[in-house]
């Protein structure tokens, strides 16, 4: 894993809101690299900067200082056009409230980012159905969002986030609106997409969902204060659960 190029790199990232007396450091000194095949969970109390980190990683907000590198592009110096292309081709988002377009079927929702990127409607549809089938969601292809459960919608949203060549999925509390059983199945899907080679960043305050990650990063007051590294599971339960 470590010999590969990271899909996402955050380097010495800071985000300051306001100025002078009301200046607030939402993020400071953030260094983080996420590799293909890796799912990283970001945990922390509300107001610790979790969501800010994710929006900056995805180019939806700009940092006050530091660099954000997605694949090979520094998005802090990219042009508006480059950034838009990167968001279409490289970065997928999953939100708490699914954000599927109600007037489009599951397959059309998944096909949309490909069509926006210039793929023909027919080809985009074929790709979308393939992505849904690969994730065990083929039976949902022709359903509209209001004909699906929350868990189904969220799984379709993950398919949309990773359709085409996109390898980076940024998930902000993706299980927030789901019961815990359904939340687990959404995490299991995210986990399996990362096992298949995607890189994922998951923001959550639920330890149970963070536990699906390879690495858990703890954020407090805008800084990374700690992180875990997963041990080999085989050494577990024989009293060798060593600290990272």
């Amino acid at each position: 894993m470590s010999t590969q190029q990271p899909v996402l790199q955050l380097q010495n990232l800071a985000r300051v809101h306001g100025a002078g007396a009301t200046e607030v450091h939402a993020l400071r000194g953030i260094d983080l690299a996420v590799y293909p095949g890796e799912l990283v969970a970001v945990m922390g109390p509300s107001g610790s900067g979790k969501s800010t980190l994710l929006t900056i990683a995805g180019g939806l907000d700009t940092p006050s200082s530091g660099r954000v590198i997605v694949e090979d592009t520094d998005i802090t110096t990219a042009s508006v056009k480059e950034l838009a292309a990167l968001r279409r081709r490289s970065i997928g988002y999953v939100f708490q409230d699914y954000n599927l377009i109600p007037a489009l079927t599951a397959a059309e929702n998944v096909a949309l980012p490909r069509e926006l990127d210039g793929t023909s409607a027919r080809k985009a549809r074929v790709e979308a159905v393939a992505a849904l089938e690969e994730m065990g969601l083929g039976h949902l292809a022709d359903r509209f969002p209001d004909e699906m459960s929350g868990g189904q919608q969220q799984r379709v949203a993950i398919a949309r986030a990773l359709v085409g060549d996109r390898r980076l999925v940024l998930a902000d509390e993706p299980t927030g609106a789901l019961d815990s059983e359904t939340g687990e199945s959404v995490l299991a899907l995210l986990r399996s997409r990362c096992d298949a080679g995607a890189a994922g960043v998951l923001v959550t305050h639920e330890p149970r969902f963070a536990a699906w990650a390879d690495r858990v990063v703890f954020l407090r007051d805008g800084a990374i204060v700690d992180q875990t590294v997963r041990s080999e599971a085989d050494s577990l339960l024989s009293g060798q659960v060593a600290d990272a």
Partner: protein
Amino acid sequence: MSIRHGLLALLERGPRYGSQLRTEFESRTGSTWPLNVGQVYTTLNRLERDGMVAQGGEDAAGHTLYAITDSGRAELRTWFEKPVDRTSPARDELAIKLAMAVGAPGVDIRDVIQSQRRHTVKAMQDYTRLKARALLAVEGGGSRERDDVAWLLVLEQLIFQTEAEARWLDHCESRLIRLSATTAVENPATAPASPAAPSTPTAPVVSGTPAGPGTPASQHPSTTGTPGAR
């Protein structure tokens, strides 16, 4: 943990010998609570003394077989029917540690909480990975082996337990922050930590200034780069 009742439950399915009981106990529970053969035989001797099992000959290889008696069956039924007692909780080292850390000189309780949180979440990650694997065995294979299902239930119990602990730690931290924000009392815990204490890049001690997004920038000397440069 009741080895006694665990063995009775296994014997109810037919006569078994000592090391066989040990193997079956461990495959049911994924070796979460390892047993040695000595413990198994000691327990069998006591069960025999109490009339709950009886030696019943040997198998082809010459192993002494034990069988459950009627009084053993009655004991087992009572065990399944009666809830496990939760009214006299076992000593919990973590609860005792945090109770002692409140106001302890030279101890930053948030560091104590964070170091435990890291350990607990990491254990959850490992259990969760084992669970994902166990789920595949139970759901994928089609052969719903009793042992696989039992192991999955045990793993999920471990996950629920560690989850409860992680949530409790979060709760402790936010309660301490709330309390320190409302009662600005002089507290010995604000004294500098002893030089021997590991220094981690954590926020100010909990009894100091309330931390949070509203904390003045001067609290964050580690900020790098030029704020507002972009």
